[in-house]
């Protein structure tokens, strides 16, 4: 295993290439831009294609087209750019096309966009939220495996810190086992066979009886596929000191690193505090939160937004303990989410206040 000193964006780009990604399309937007830069430089070197799309609408369309040929493909942006892509992301899911999508977000206000989906219709995306560069390298590769396994988009939720932090990482290829054969993918070869393939959000097969699409059949099949995916994807979480915790602190992504430091400092001083970091935001690791909450006096949720993941935490806790929001909308003047609120001392103070009041 060889380690290199890489900026997060470059590490993510290298990890995508290591995972087999051979098509990428994007449109510049801070803090996503450097991922696009690295893919534009690196993909042609490995026989891949990177498209500098005219907008996020076309970026996701190009990635959709490439992915429909079975080519491991990805796109991404910042939350604002992903807003533009939502119509396509919804339809790509209903067309059962595997795709990896990056959100190099500004702060954490895109949690609902990521986990609920900003698009129309009944669909879900798998969402992975790495905390640091080395975990992002792992998650990006896992994302390609999950996308191919479940024929579903997988979102990797990063941020400004992840994109711009330099770390010592290995971007060697990770093995997650074989993915199913992509026998659905298009290459033109079934034309004239009487069974020419179709990839469509309206149906996965042509109807030779001439009756056209049957949306009821298709949407039902998609719902069943989603249910299989939700049952089949293991929810992941990092935990620390939850066995005897009277207060359980929950956070995801970059801020979780600060919350973990605050919790560890409090533990050192004898406070019975634990920490849970959801790694898969969907499927959400509800069970580990529920069992920790059952033994605790209170749960505290830290996010750099107005409180979004807290809804999922409350659904997991189901009244077993009071759930408090200790995060804050945390934006510097740039709006890029550089998060002045990320201060271990400040977070510790808020956690102590919840503990004292519980």
């Amino acid at each position, binding site marked *: 295993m060889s380690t290199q000193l890489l900026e997060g964006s470059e590490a993510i780009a290298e990890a995508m290439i290591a995972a087999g990604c051979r098509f990428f399309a994007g449109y510049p937007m801070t803090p996503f831009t450097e991922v696009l830069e690295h893919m534009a430089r690196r993909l042609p070197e490995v026989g891949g294609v990177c498209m500098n799309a005219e907008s996020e609408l076309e970026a996701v*369309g190009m990635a959709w087209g490439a992915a429909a040929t079975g080519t491991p493909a990805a796109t991404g942006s910042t939350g604002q750019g992903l807003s533009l892509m939502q119509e396509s992301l919804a339809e790509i899911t209903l067309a059962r096309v595997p795709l990896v999508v990056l959100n190099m977000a500004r702060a954490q206000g895109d949690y609902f966009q990521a986990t609920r989906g900003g698009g129309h219709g009944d669909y879900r995306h798998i969402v992975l939220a790495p905390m640091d560069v080395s975990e992002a390298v792992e998650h990006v590769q896992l994302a390609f495996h999950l996308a191919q396994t479940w024929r579903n988009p997988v979102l990797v939720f990063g941020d400004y810190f992840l994109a711009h932090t330099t770390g010592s990482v290995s971007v060697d290829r990770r093995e997650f086992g074989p993915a199913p054969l992509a026998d659905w993918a298009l290459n*033109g070869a079934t034309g004239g066979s009487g069974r*020419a393939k179709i990839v469509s959000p309206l149906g996965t097969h042509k109807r030779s009886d001439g009756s056209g699409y049957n949306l009821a059949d298709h949407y039902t099949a998609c719902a069943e596929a989603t249910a299989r995916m939700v049952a089949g994807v293991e929810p992941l979480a990092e935990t620390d000191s939850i066995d005897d915790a009277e207060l359980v602190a929950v956070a995801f992504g970059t801020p979780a690193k600060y919350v973990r430091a605050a919790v560890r400092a409090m533990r050192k001083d004898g406070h019975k505090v634990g920490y849970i970091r959801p790694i898969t935001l969907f499927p959400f690791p509800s069970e580990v939160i529920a069992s920790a909450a059952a033994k605790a006096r209170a749960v505290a949720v830290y996010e750099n937004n107005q409180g979004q993941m807290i809804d999922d935490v409350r659904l997991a806790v189901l009244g077993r303990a009071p759930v408090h929001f200790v995060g804050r909308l945390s934006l510097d003047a740039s709006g890029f989410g550089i998060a002045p609120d990320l201060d271990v001392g400040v977070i510790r103070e808020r956690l102590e206040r919840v503990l004292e009041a519980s």
Partner: protein
Amino acid sequence: MSEPRIVPSGAPPSQPATLVRDFTPSLIEVGTHHLCPGCGEPVAMRAAVEAIEELGLTRRTIGVFGIGCYTAFSNNLDVEVLQALHGRAPSLGTGVKRAKPETFVFTVQGDGDMVNEGLQEVIHAAARGENITCLMLNNGVFGETGGHMTATTVIGQRTKNSLEGRNAADHGHPILLANLIAQLDGAAYVARGAVNTAHNVAITKQMITAAFEAQVAGRGFSFVEILTMCPTGWFVDTAEAPAYLGDNLAAVHSIGVLKDSARDA
């Protein structure tokens, strides 16, 4: 020589009709469709799939369909199909072609899909010289919603949301898309045909063939706009629609080859 047998027109036939020959192109799996009587889109689709077969492209073709009445054909052609969103076929076609350059890629969109919803897609694909063929079925209305004004509706044309006829003061001017595309350096072949007469169908088939050949030769972006009848959306009798097309749409959207890099070179 025997006398010709005269069948009185009012009498019922003595024999049931028998199919002597089926003229359905082999790449149309199911000839029946739910499009309106007099619709021009099946005629245009037929020309396209005949050209695919004649050029020997059947086993490497991927058709990318937009959303409109013609989407019915995404489900009954015997070529591989990628179904796009309304407005988004050129970017999907770009992804397919860039990922698999050995495939033959054509897209099908209507005027609402291509010129209203997703105009920048086709403009950028053309400017990039993307080696795909985009077909636009232009009937000057949103046919699937029942005859509403699009960006190609001609001045004076009555639609459901321009009941007194399109006027420039309120609704602006129609976009003549083929003319716009022809100005872009990446476009190798640009033409506008129509399916309102047998003559025009034959010309349009030649245009589609030339556009497909441009892609096969790797010359860059090729584009054929095809004027199609929509008697339902035009609120005219089915039999009058071909003449209506000639007198109204084709009077503004002129039929002809606007650019041909093979010829102009």
